[in-house]
């Protein structure tokens, strides 16, 4: 179950970052994401979901990478990119990774995604794991630095 979800996440991350943004990426082996939440240069975005089980996805991404991704995505130079473009790109990346993960995991199951929201990275802690929640963290290296995607889900209501 956890391995199948992790595989689905990795496939969807590749699809989104490589297919839509044409950015090369490498999955890393690190188990901690402390370095991603301790940097003030990083932005965090969360999207909740419910369905066969409930939980949320979190994306941690440095600002310089999101600028590069946005330039690739909308085909505009940095000078024309607005704050709305940057925030929109972060939310869209997480939205696509989440939706694609569930499609890759089980296309028969229905999962309802919430609207993605930017969260204050200072309020996120590695130690704040909820009881009964399982976590999967995928660290990624791409041009310009490291980012990460975390899935936390309630395993007590699995069907």
């Amino acid at each position, binding site marked *: 179950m956890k391995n199948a979800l992790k595989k689905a996440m990795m496939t969807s991350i590749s699809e989104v970052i490589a297919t839509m943004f*044409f950015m090369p990426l490498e999955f890393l082996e690190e188990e901690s994401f402390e370095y991603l939440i301790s940097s003030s240069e990083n932005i965090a975005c969360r999207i909740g979901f419910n369905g066969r089980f409930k939980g949320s996805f979190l994306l941690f991404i440095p600002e310089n990478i999101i600028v590069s991704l946005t330039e690739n995505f909308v085909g505009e130079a940095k000078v024309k990119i607005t704050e709305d473009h940057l925030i929109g790109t972060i939310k869209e990346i997480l939205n*696509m990774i989440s*939706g*694609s993960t569930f499609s890759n995991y089980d296309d028969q199951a229905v999962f309802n995604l919430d609207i993605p929201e930017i969260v204050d990275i200072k309020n996120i802690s590695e130690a704040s794991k909820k009881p009964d929640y399982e976590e999967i963290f995928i660290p990624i290296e791409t041009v310009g630095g490291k980012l990460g995607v975390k899935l936390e889900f309630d395993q007590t209501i699995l069907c």
Partner: protein
Amino acid sequence: MSYNILVVDDSLPMRSIIIKTIKASGFKTSNFFEAGNGAEALEVLKNQWLDLVITDYNMPGMNGMELIREMKKDSIFNSIPVLVVSTEGSRQKMKEFQEKGVADYIRKPFVPEEIKLKITQILGEVEDEECFEESDDDLDF
């Protein structure tokens, strides 16, 4: 023939990429209209003649399915083809869209060729293929 196309998505970059892709595909589009959710889209529909509506599913306020339901209730809007571009990939959701009479569906993430292919199937062949190769709006990725 030129077309009026409405792109409905709460993501500004996603609206930009869809519009750029269509322009680069050589469709002679008169006007693009944009809306951030279903309610905004209905306002545009009331004021503009449209040939195609491209909509996301998951949006704040009125989502894509609610927009399609409203369009199908209206004797004029129900004849406008709808292309859904969404992260939703479950078979049940796809079936639901099909039952609501959407013209086609593209799952995000997509490659630009998918947008061109689906719109060609809905609106007909691109009239000037050279436009695709020489367009200043050609995608930069």
